[in-house]
């Protein structure tokens, strides 16, 4: 892979909607739920909720502000590639890519929506961006991810009572990828485990298709058995893809300077850093402040680490995540080039 034209993740900027919402918000609605004490659903202290009239496109525009500020309007407007992922597209038929490009003032040659990447979408998008740029499709790519299910789907009156609803939080992020060796993407591993693709389900009572009208509000169909399987898969997959990248770049996991992952719950965070033999201070997360940020977890945590000075020029950061009930996982290593204001 070293012969490949160097492609860099130059910067990320992020957006967390509104004021933090404390765990009490959910406690007031909580009903008895047999999954309440489940390790997967122990609530974070805070999370953010997308506002009622705020669209995924709004979130991405706000997330991009940091990039515009640091790299200039042209860096965003002139990008050749836009890759997007939205947890809950404003309009499910056609996704968010076109609208986001328009809002950002872009006329890119490529606009691609990634839905399958789930919580690992940022890694999948980096792989795609890297390959497109390296093959001559442009000089700059923008990756935009928006997680907006917390203030929407999980905050429905009958859903927010459930244990699962206190965990998600909303947020968005935009990453800037360019043809350069300033902050090179060292390697990326993406794996699809299609056999698990059907395991994440929407539970609606009475049953209906998600697009059909009906009285029941949709939530994620969790059972104890399913949670245990997902825990076991996540425990396995995130280290697996991280090791694969480490092998190829010739690094021991314990020598990584920083790990950022998605953050479904505290158990995964602990298990993954244990698996990579990294101390807590080398694994930046925002779980207590933001909850489960889905696909925005990696870039928000990366941004946090950069802002707090935990990632320095020359450091190698591993970004890793798995998606849904374990149907996709990805890891990417970047040798961070530093943030130029």
């Amino acid at each position, binding site marked *: 892979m070293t012969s490949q034209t160097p492609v860099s993740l130059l910067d990320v900027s992020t957006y967390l909607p509104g004021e933090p919402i404390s765990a009490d918000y959910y406690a007031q609605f909580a009903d008895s739920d047999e*999954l309440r*004490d*489940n*390790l997967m659903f122990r609530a974070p202290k805070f999370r953010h909720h997308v506002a009622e009239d705020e669209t995924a496109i709004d979130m991405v525009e706000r997330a991009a502000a940091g990039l515009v500020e640091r790299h200039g309007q042209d860096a965003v407007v002139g990008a050749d590639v836009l890759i997007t992922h939205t947890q809950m597209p404003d309009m499910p038929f056609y996704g968010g890519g076109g609208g986001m490009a328009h809002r950002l003032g872009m006329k890119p040659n490529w606009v691609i929506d990634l839905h399958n990447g789930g919580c690992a979408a940022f890694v999948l998008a980096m792989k795609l961006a890297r390959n497109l740029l390296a093959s001559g499709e442009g000089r700059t790519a923008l990756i935009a991810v928006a997680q907006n299910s917390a203030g929407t789907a999980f905050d429905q009156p009958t859903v927010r009572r459930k244990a699962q609803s206190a965990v998600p939080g909303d947020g968005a992020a935009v990453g800037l990828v360019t043809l350069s060796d300033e902050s090179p993407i060292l390697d990326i591993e993406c794996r699809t485990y299609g056999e698990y693709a059907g395991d994440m389900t929407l539970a609606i009572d009475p049953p209906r298709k998600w697009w059909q009208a009906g009285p029941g509000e949709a939530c994620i169909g969790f059972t104890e058995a399913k949670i245990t399987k997902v*825990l076991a898969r996540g425990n*396995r997959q*995130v280290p697996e893809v991280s090791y694969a990248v480490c092998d190829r770049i010739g690094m021991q996991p314990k020598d990584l300077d920083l790990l950022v992952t998605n953050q479904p719950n505290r158990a995964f965070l602990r*298990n993954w850093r*244990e698996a990579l033999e990294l101390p807590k201070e080398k694994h930046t997360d925002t779980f207590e402040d933001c909850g489960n940020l889905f696909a925005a977890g990696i870039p928000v945590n990366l941004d946090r680490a950069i802002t707090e000075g935990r990632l320095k020029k020359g450091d190698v950061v591993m970004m890793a995540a798995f998606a849904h009930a374990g149907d996709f996982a990805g890891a990417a290593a970047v040798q961070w080039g530093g943030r130029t204001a």
Partner: protein
Amino acid sequence: MSLPALDDIVDHTGNPEPIDGVVRIETAPREKATPIIMEMMRSVYPHDQVFGEYCTVNDYVDCPPDELFDYLSDTRSLEEWTYSLRGFTPTDEPGLWLAYDRLGSETEIYTRTVANREARTVDYHCAWDQGTHLWMVYLMRVVDAQVVLNKPGSVVLWTNCHHPFYDNNPYPEAAPSQRPVWVGDFWDMFGAGHELELKNLKAIAEYRHHNGLPVTPAWMR
């Protein structure tokens, strides 16, 4: 009617609360037990937690269980499938064999094999240097794979327990002078070492079985 399970302990403690360390559905319903279980599920487990006190390795061997049991229950099979035990000869004491463990120079190892055909257990009671106190015990069991894996063949289970003598040689006077190593120095390698030996056993037994050779070779009969 449920059985009077643990009634004696309730009588003894004088209250129906479970004693420490007991997790049963009556006092820890699933919503209470599941978090405990999930807390215990990790991505990785420290070596010492897996191999520190009990060193267990298991494998499937494509060879009929009774034939594999017969082979293992002959102490001299160790001459073939172990990494370093060589030169088995009978001693004056019936059932006690003397060999050399080439891991230690000039190191004698004594072995007595206790096998039970019905359970297909084969326990090698061994010790370095002396044959009076056989404290290194290799507990093995051959299971019919048809029963546990729904396919022909054998499953071999093998556990060693971390006897305190692994840490301190109780019979230093029996050791050859100047020997730089003690068997317990290798305890941390046992997981890997025993796996390697189990692979030896698998390769040998499967070769014989697949090629129509008796699993227990003629020279041992």
